[in-house]
């Protein structure tokens, strides 16, 4: 019973839902601010993202007539639940490497699909043709980036010879960070466009594409349900780079120096994502698939072969 209570605390307060929400929305602001500065705008004040979510929660929610209501309303929750669990697993392992369970890396990979699946279900039940197109694009994007992402993560597994997140982090605290190896540099480079696509950021915002299919899967969402989707995305913005830090930069050490280092690493990855986002136009879906399958995947395979021969 005690265990379950503790697990619930971890999931809901720290490092799960509430913690990730607060920091996610903060980094969402960082993202918007930096993007604005790059485009010579002033950008929003620090509380803007919190205010957005709060405002959305107060708005009237409009459900499209004739849509599959239960699916339409439950879809956002699915994504939120998935990303909460991911965040809990990754942070818990960083805090205490002993709590890692066999195959948690695989569990994280699977749970990371849930937010995308939520978008697909939502778009598909919304009855809006743009929503349907968005859903089909989202699924194709999953297929596109999942392959190189998997190979990049297998490169890490090959290097560490373990699929426990805890052991991957411990390995790096003893042997030095993984990104020091050529194979893992490649894997890390491969992961960057993949998380860009997971976040549906430009140039991979094809499923949403505001100027083309008016937000795609999100077109019919409003009020609280839209707020939950926004929140999920903010949480992903916080947790995905941190996932990469755990895999390639040895995770976090809980002292002032360690936290500062992670913060710098995190901001560097964030900056890269934002730079890609602000300097590229959106790709078409077929271009994105070709980019991931025929360009990023071979690169990832090179990285994996390097890891196999011990580089």
């Amino acid at each position, binding site marked *: 019973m005690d265990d*379950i209570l503790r697990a*619930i605390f971890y*999931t809901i307060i720290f490092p*799960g839902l509430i913690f990730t929400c607060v920091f996610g929305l903060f980094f969402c602001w960082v993202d918007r601010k930096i993007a604005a500065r790059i485009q010579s705008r002033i950008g929003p004040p620090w509380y803007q993202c919190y205010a957005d979510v709060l405002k959305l*929660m*107060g*708005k*009237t*929610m*409009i*459900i*499209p*007539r*004739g849509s*599959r209501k239960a*699916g339409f309303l439950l879809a*956002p929750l*699915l994504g*939120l*639940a*998935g990303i909460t*669990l991911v965040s*809990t697993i990754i942070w818990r392992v960083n805090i205490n490497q002993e709590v890692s*369970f*066999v*195959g*948690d890396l*695989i*569990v994280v990979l*699977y749970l990371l699909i849930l937010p995308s*699946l939520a978008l697909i279900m939502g778009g*598909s*039940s919304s009855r*809006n*043709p743009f929503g*349907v197109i968005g*859903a*089909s694009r989202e*699924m*194709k994007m*999953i*297929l596109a980036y*999942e*392959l190189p992402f*998997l*190979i990049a993560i*297998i490169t890490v597994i*090959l290097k560490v010879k373990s699929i426990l997140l805890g052991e991957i982090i411990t390995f790096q605290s003893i042997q030095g960070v993984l990104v020091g190896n050529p194979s893992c540099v490649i894997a890390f480079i491969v992961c960057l466009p993949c998380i860009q696509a997971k976040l549906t950021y430009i140039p991979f915002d094809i499923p949403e594409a505001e100027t083309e299919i*008016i937000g795609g899967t999100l077109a*019919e969402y409003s*009020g*609280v*349900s839209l707020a*939950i989707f926004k929140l999920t995305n903010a949480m992903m913005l916080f947790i995905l780079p941190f996932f990469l830090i755990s895999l390639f930069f040895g995770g976090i050490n809980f002292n002032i120096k360690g936290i500062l280092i992670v913060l710098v690493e995190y901001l560097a990855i964030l900056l890269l994502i934002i730079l890609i986002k602000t300097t590229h136009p959106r790709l078409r*879906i*077929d271009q994105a698939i*070709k980019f991931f399958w*025929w360009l990023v995947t071979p690169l990832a395979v090179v990285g*994996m072969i390097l890891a*196999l021969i011990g580089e």
Partner: protein
Amino acid sequence: MNLILLIPIILPITIGFICLIVPWQRIREVFTFIGMLLTTAVALKILLLNELRLQIEWITLSSAQINFDLISYHFSAFILLACSFFGLLITIYSLKQMKGKYHLKEYYIYLLWTVGIANGSILSNNLVILLIFWSIMPVLLYLLIDISGSGSGKAALKSIIIVGGSDFLMLLGVVIIWHLKGTITMNEIIIPIEDGLSTAAFILLTIGAVAKAGAMPFHSWIPDAAEVAHVPVMAFLPAALDKLLGIYLLVRIALDLFIMDYSMKVLLMSIGAVTIIAAVMMALVQKDLRKLLSYHAVSQVGYMVLGIGTGTLIGIAGGLFHMLNNVIYKCCLFLCCGAVEHRIKTTNLERLGGLARTMPVTFITCVIAALSISGIPPLNGFVSKWMVYQGIIDVGGSIWPIFLIAAMFGSALTLASFVKVLHSVFLGEMPKEIMEPKEVEFSMKVPLVILALFCVFFGIFAQFPLKYFIGPVLEVRFSGIGEAINLNGMWSPTLATTLLAFSLVCGIIFYRLGNIKALKEGDIFVGGEPIDCEELRISGIHFYDTIESTGFLKYLYKKAKARAFDPYEWGKTISFSLYSGLSKIHRGILPIYILWIIIGFAVLLFILMK
């Protein structure tokens, strides 16, 4: 004498014969139902008893004995129960679904016989007895496919040629084993694979097992049969029974009869990996629900073969668990397909849509089964797939990453094709010609709901089937199974589900915190244009056209659609070309025959005179 072992074989067969002479359809259905129920009950009884054996002397040869030898131990008893139980479910389902169908009279009789014969092959402890039962199965399969009306003959023929042909290869394997060990009693054989003969025996027997399960390259009869056969037949044979039997035999071969070496493991794992990817890629672009599901029936075998091929404890356990899970959700999916067909009279994805509103039970069970097969946590498919992955990593060496990529990416592709199914059948817009269909009858809902509940239960409480079914099976070969299987310190499905549920509750609290009371309905927003949703219906069938036409996949798909990768077609081409020369000579035209006779006579004369 443990005569109870004979009951699951003889009882359904006898009732089948009784049904043959009963003239009333209603009575026949009742008899079938009672027969299946009794068989299930007896199978349960056998599972609860300890190891049983029944030996009746039959033929004694100088080199070996062929006894009528039945054995039930933990593993076979469980498979026995599963077979009988699925027979029962299919019978309940068929009562309404099959109503008014062609050749209904024979259908139930064949169903009963299939269960009896399948039970026989599960229980037999002698390879020859196994082979006898095993080779009656394709005949019944042929009959069950063949009764489904016009155009089914070809598919039925294909199935019997492929499955029956593989049985013949199995016979060769049995002969080699006989030669090697001098015995064909299964629990007395352990052959280490070291020379050519034992390798040949292993491969031949494996072909029999994987052909029954439907792995590549022996899969091609399944999609063909799916197009024509009755849906319950598909749900019963390729989706459930064939998997149970094929994988049961494969585990017996890989675990009990032989000791696999590394190359055999790699062979099995390669079959598995290729099956997963190739079949699911085909499933992705299907436009008919039956065909799509049938390709998944092939693809999922890949995970089982891959898991068993790893030869590691957790891999084999995962493969077995996946077999169990697969029969549950795949049977459920086929039955959902049958429910849709029962109401709408078509399985063409383009002509379906929006059924979620009017057929909620079918929809929810289908969602559960679809998410299970895609391996979404916390459902059962996730647990077994994850165990297979773990097994692959445990193999070591340098080749495992390829298998892991195939397995994990295959899972994403599976999800993709079920997104297409759920959208096109249940979520999208309803086509105009469908007139608000009603939910299916109660007796059809029962099997759907039971199977969906099993999906959820085996996912959340995965420790139960692992502990009570899979653990004891593997205890024979692996010691220390207890701690490895009981998932301690691993992914705990129950806890994870609790946490997922709590996160969901948090989401609901979010909804409550928000302005949920001001909920209203509005029109769909399409950039301000007023649109007619029915006109602008987007069916799911074009979801993956982009993938179909990208790079060399375009070429592969084109070839695959022309059946260029079907060994059956190769065999057909080769054998036709072989006798095309002969058939030119044999036209039945008398002068030509006379010409041949004269030529022959001349040659003969020439030789004699020389």
